[in-house]
């Protein structure tokens, strides 16, 4: 087990009056692709900030790669093991030139000097921003910033990568490309944790964690979770289009054989039915 948490509770208040996390149990395996879904304020960012000790454990237990997250002397090791791309890229920028921005992280993690230029180039190429090495981060468009923030973390080659709504500012093609990057990294053995408000991005995950009001409402395979209307409603989320369509067609007396999860499955189901008419 790569990440194992039991009974984690967390409050931002001094008096602990309101809980951002309540008795959360979590298990993430080495090499897993995990999607975390949940409405605004459900505790997604709060939870993942525990994994690399950005937030200190208040209650419960958490082990990341066998290390007790409470151990202060291991904080740097955890930060390094577990890279995180934040929700608001601006918050991450410290330099006035894109390539220095990426170099900064690498130097911080004591990457050998002669390796740094290559790592910067490779990371920029991966996010298709090679032409932007000399630009100032604050002169980039919203989506360009998000890609640079992504490159900054990818260059560090962490074992666990947390993406906190990184696709929010991207155009549909860009979103698709970044999702492909995540899957490529996953294919190369990395553990991926992706927070998103686009349910379609969770369809190809190994595991979906559904959060609501600081609790884990459900955890399981994407099909079981995303096609469960009651569960999705309880989480205040909207299921993927194929699932909605399956149910709306049923109401109109059109019965597809199985509830599809992807566009391709939906087309297959429709084709099957159509060929019988």
């Amino acid at each position: 087990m790569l990440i194992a948490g039991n009974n984690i509770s967390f409050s931002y208040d001094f008096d602990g009056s309101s809980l951002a996390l309540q008795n959360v149990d979590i298990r993430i395996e080495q090499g897993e692709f995990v999607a975390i879904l949940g409405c605004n304020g459900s505790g997604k960012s709060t939870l993942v900030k525990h994994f690399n000790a950005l937030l200190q454990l208040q209650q419960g237990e958490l082990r990341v790669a066998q290390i007790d997250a409470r151990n202060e002397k291991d904080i740097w090791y955890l930060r390094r093991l577990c890279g995180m791309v934040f929700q608001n890229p601006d918050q991450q920028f410290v330099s006035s030139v894109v390539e220095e921005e990426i170099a900064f992280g690498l130097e911080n993690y004591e990457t050998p000097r002669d390796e740094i230029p290559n790592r910067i180039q490779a990371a920029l190429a991966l996010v298709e921003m090679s032409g932007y090495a000399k630009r100032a981060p604050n002169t980039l468009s919203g989506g360009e910033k998000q890609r640079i923030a992504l490159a900054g973390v990818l260059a560090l080659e962490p074992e666990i990568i947390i993406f906190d709504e990184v696709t929010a500012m991207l155009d549909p093609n860009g979103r698709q490309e970044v999702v492909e990057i995540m899957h490529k990294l996953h294919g190369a053995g990395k553990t991926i944790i992706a927070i998103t408000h686009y349910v379609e991005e969770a369809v190809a995950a190994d595991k979906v964690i559904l959060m609501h009001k600081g609790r884990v409402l459900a955890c399981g395979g994407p099909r079981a979770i995303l096609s469960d209307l009651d569960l999705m409603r309880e989480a205040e989320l909207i299921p993927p289009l194929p699932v909605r369509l399956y149910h709306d067609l049923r109401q109109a007396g059109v019965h597809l054989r199985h509830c599809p999860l992807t566009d391709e499955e939906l087309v297959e189901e429709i084709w099957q039915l159509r060929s019988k008419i």
Partner: protein
Amino acid sequence: MAIKIENLSYSYLQPFGEKVEALKNVSCSIADGDFVGIMGHTGCGKTTLLQLLAGLRAPTSGQIYVNGEEINAKGYDKSSLRQTVGVVFQNPEYQLFATTVEKDVAFGLKHSGLSRQEVTARVQWALETMGFDFAKIRSQSPLALSGGEKRRVAIAGVLARKPEILLFDEPIAGLDPYGRENFLRFVGEINQAGTTVLMVSHNMEALAEYTKHLLVLEQGRLIDSGPTREVFVRLKQRKNGAFGQTKAQKIATLLAEVKLPLSSGVVTYADLLSALKQELTGGGRG
């Protein structure tokens, strides 16, 4: 209020002397009370366009008329533009700075001439519109909120001023699904009540279902514009397909590939549902 844009160009100057031409010769007119969506890839100039419309940058060349007046002409009163036009930026979370949510939202009402009670009522209305429990949220620090909550507070701050023209730059990025729908429905309502709205979005469903007209930018040029539905249908016929397609359109394309063509007018989810009902209850070719 109507907006007219003529031959608008804007270049950013880079420290090493290079230019970034963010907008090239853009012309269009937006009628009073319209709801216009702006679509285009990352870096195509959408934010730049909104900044020019809000009078925050002066064009390199070309003119912008708001209500018939050129906003960059000598002697034009820019402060009246600030009253008329409300902008919610792409990362509005950074505009939050007051010690409480209530003060933050009230900030823009400072010179509004409203009484203290009226200000409170306005702030309450704006926060409730954005889905908050006013009593619960009013004295919280804006910094102590989740990403989506911060964004909703920032939007409330602009709504509270009730500007006649609203410019939104990716307002629904980071909002959860119901938050998105509620926001869009609300913007639709204030648009119905007369507010002119321009909304930049990467969310094709939001553009298709809520806007009346669309502007499509590509590398700084306006490559298409017109009634929303027509533009979506035209974009589908373009060679580099994937650009600007709704999920319903993508499914229609996949169906056409397996010899199940639906009407080319399928753009929204509702279109897809009714076309499929027709097709699959034997009402189609059956």
